[in-house]
């Protein structure tokens, strides 16, 4: 074995790699960016109409007038802010917001493996394993680009939901939420689940 040749092969490979990456339009930055999750602000969560009523009934008439004026504008402001944020990247949500979206009929997508999905998943969720083969992605055709999508995986440690969320967002789904906490939090709260394959 000739050391000089060995080093020459390694050195030239590294050099070509860096040069190619610099001229390649799909090249990547030298330092990988850390994916940071941006959470939906809690105040953007709409107050359910029932609790709004009970709240307003306890305050006096002057406050009632004020609140009836300020509340709608507050909400629309927040909604606008929220919609603007949604076009930048998928937003992360926690269990409270996730359940609220669930009640609103958002599409839940399970990014875990089919075996884990079969063992138990959020009721009504569909399975698109992030690492699985492409055939699963045909299911996506049934989902409109404007639908609210919530991706999830096991819990806070997994990142399949983030990866899938980012991919869906790149594919043109604009209202993608990443449910941070995922299956573990859902199960802990005792929210509706179902078992078996989809």
């Amino acid at each position, binding site marked *: 074995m000739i050391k000089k*040749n*060995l080093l020459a092969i390694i050195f030239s490979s590294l050099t070509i790699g*860096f040069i190619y990456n610099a001229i390649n339009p799909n090249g990547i930055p030298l330092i990988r960016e850390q994916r940071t999750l941006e959470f939906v602000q809690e105040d953007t969560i709409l107050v359910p109409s029932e609790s709004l009523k009970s709240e307003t009934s306890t305050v006096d008439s002057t406050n009632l007038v004020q609140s009836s004026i300020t509340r709608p504008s507050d909400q629309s402001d927040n909604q606008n802010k929220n919609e603007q944020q949604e076009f930048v990247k998928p937003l992360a949500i926690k269990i409270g917001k996730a359940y609220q979206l669930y009640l609103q009929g958002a599409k839940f997508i399970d990014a875990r493996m089919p075996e884990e999905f079969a063992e138990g998943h959020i009721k009504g969720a569909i399975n698109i394993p992030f*690492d699985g083969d492409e055939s699963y992605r045909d299911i996506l055709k049934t989902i409109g680009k404007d639908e609210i999508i919530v991706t999830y995986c096991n819990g806070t440690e997994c990142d399949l939901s983030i990866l899938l969320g980012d991919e869906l967002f790149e594919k043109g789904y604009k209202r993608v939420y990443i449910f941070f906490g995922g299956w573990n939090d859902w199960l802990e709260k005792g929210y509706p689940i179902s078992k078996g394959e989809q």
Partner: protein
Amino acid sequence: MKKVFSNQYFLLIIRIIIAMVFIYAGAEKISDPKGFSQSIYNYRILPIETINILAITLPWLELISGILLLFGISVKENAAIIGTLLLVFIIAVALSMIRGLDIDCGCFGKGNMVGWRKIGENSLMLIICVVLMAFDSRIILLNDRKTD
């Protein structure tokens, strides 16, 4: 056994197999640097600052070593490089299995999960590399090397 290993045709065949595998693996990764960077990240072994450097350079090392091996240029050196890479891959796959990570191995694009099968394949290729390092493969050499 030694007679089989020192058979030039046998050595040529295993050399071409390894070369093809690494040319394919390297080219596949070069075509999707973002995906390969993600695969390395999923192993959660390396610090984030080093991941992209590896994702940029490693595929080219695989590709170039594979091509040189195919044409019989510096067979021992390239077998040593590929063997070292395989050893690193085996350790990485084993570590992720021990830690219970159910991830894509990032070997040949998507759809290859870490597991015993991957360790088996890599170990077999590692053995081939060791054989090539020990016996060389002098048939169809592009460079006329008389001394080692």
